[in-house]
């Protein structure tokens, strides 16, 4: 199947995200307009206009009604998915790096950068009302980050947040208690991405130290390591097979001085258990910044530094693949 290319952004993609059913694909980039697309034919449903800075993070809730984007303009905006209207704007003291809805969609968490004399902080807000009253509401709780800046985050069920940090640390926080439960330092460089498996028992991290690792959600034990030669920017676990997809490539700043082939901008597919690479897929001409499987596992999308989002449907040979 030929891949769909979505060109709705003027700058490099920072995150892409499927909603739960997988019919919508959200994308955000360093320009100021997150986009939403129909994943089936690549038709753009709309863009969420209103930010003034680069969008670093996006999230959509379980029912695909609430959408959230955190930006370098020091705001977190909540949107109605269906109309593209901004519902609330929460001002922060530094740029918003990560944001997540809780599993129920009742709460949202966002982390702010350590910048301009501000420490990195994890804030939890109640988003049940979803109206402009959120603008002034103060967060339910704030957890100061003593380790280092949060660079990736996932909300696990309704009570735990797992964070990946700039120094390679992974920590989990109990939201009800407002304290750290566990932490582990397996990576040596910044953790760029963190994605849960479909059954939410494991998560995979992608790090600039050129590895992706698989962790157990409860104990934060490192189960598997997937090694590459280039920084890994994103990693995802297939919902139907024991496959892990890794996206990355050399640093964006070095891209112009090497050929596309040397940059290793392919998405790479590893076996979850054997840690062995079994396939590659070319496409982007810059490093891949974000990558996600469609919830049905039959296609996947990647967003790159080149500003394109690609939706690739796997061909039959992928599904027939048998490991020896």
């Amino acid at each position: 199947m030929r891949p769909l290319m979505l060109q709705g952004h003027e700058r490099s993609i920072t995150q892409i995200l499927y909603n739960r059913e997988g019919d919508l694909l959200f994308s955000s980039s360093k320009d100021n307009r997150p986009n939403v697309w129909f994943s089936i034919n690549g038709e753009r449903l709309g863009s969420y206009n209103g930010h003034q800075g680069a969008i670093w993070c996006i999230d959509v809730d379980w029912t695909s009604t609430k959408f959230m984007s955190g930006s370098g303009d020091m705001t977190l905006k909540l949107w109605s998915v269906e109309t593209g209207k901004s519902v609330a704007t929460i001002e922060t003291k530094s740029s918003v790096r990560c944001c997540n809805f809780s599993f129920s969609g009742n709460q949202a968490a966002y982390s702010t950068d350590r910048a301009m004399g501000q420490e990195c902080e994890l804030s939890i807000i109640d988003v049940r009302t979803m109206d402009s009253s959120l603008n002034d509401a103060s967060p339910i709780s704030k957890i100061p980050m003593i380790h280092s800046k949060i660079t990736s985050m996932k909300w696990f069920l309704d009570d735990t947040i797992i964070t990946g940090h700039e120094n390679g640390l992974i920590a989990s926080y109990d939201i009800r208690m407002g304290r750290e439960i566990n932490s582990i330092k397996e990576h040596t460089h910044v953790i760029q991405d963190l994605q849960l498996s479909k059954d939410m028992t494991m998560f995979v991290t992608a790090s600039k130290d050129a590895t992706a690792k698989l962790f157990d959600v409860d104990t934060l034990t490192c189960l598997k390591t997937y090694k590459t030669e280039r920084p890994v920017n994103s990693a995802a676990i297939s919902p139907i097979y024991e496959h892990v997809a890794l996206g990355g490539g050399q640093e964006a700043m070095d891209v112009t001085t090497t050929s596309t082939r040397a940059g290793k901008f392919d998405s790479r597919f590893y076996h979850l258990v054997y840690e062995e690479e079994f396939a590659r897929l070319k496409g982007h001409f810059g490093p891949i910044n974000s990558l996600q499987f469609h919830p049905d596992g039959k296609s996947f999308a990647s967003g790159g530094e080149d500003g394109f989002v690609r939706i690739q449907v796997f061909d039959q040979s992928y599904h027939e693949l048998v490991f020896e």
Partner: protein
Amino acid sequence: MPALDEYKSSWADEIELESGSLPPPTEDIDEHGVKTVTEYKINKDDKKVKVVRTYKLQKHVVSKSVASRRLLHKFGDSANDEPGPNSQTTFVSEDINMQLITNKEEEKSNDAVVDPKNQFAKCRFCNGGHFTTNCPYRHTAAYIEKILDTKPQASASAAETTSSKPGKYVPPFIKDQQKNAGNKGRDDTTAIRISNLSEATSDADLEELTNKFGKKSKMYLAKDKNTGLCKGFAYVHFYSKEDAAAAIETLDGFGYDHLILKAEWSKPQYN
């Protein structure tokens, strides 16, 4: 139309011009659910263009929430878009095949394809494990060029490397040349092309057909992108040259699926 009268065109064009305005667009759906839309328009050079678009109609059964979202009005930057994908933002890119890595040692062996047994002989042309004069490509024009070029080029690039100080900008193509000096095409030296395969050949068949000859690094079976049927030829990359030679020996003239196969060395690509 005086302007057009001045313009001397071929009679064929004139007949078309006389036929007047653009033909109406047509839509046709065949029994396989393939919709063909033919449109005519005039492009910016004032030439008539026929645009044929084929769609495959698919029906999807989805949950209510998904179906209701399909009916949403577009907003933001897409507010003025018509239903259906906008060609400004969505387009179909060229077909890209997943490269399956059948063997885990590919990475390593790519750097050292040369068979250790034959290391005393190294082809200057293809870096294969044989004397240059025995190179299978010696009859190609590129071979002669390459042999002629090898010496002066090597010394030139050596001079360049020594003169360039660390940290100095090296253009990517030079970098590539330095890195894979003579590397190009090496990959192809152990590749064979099998043709006259039947339409029904699948990847598994090809695998079965070739696995007795030795380890393969890559296998490519040309398939029709619409039907998925074999186009009749395939490329198989072996790790060792002997395996490839043995495969050619056996498969050339081999009867497979009522067809006589043809096996030969894959011709390297020059680009």
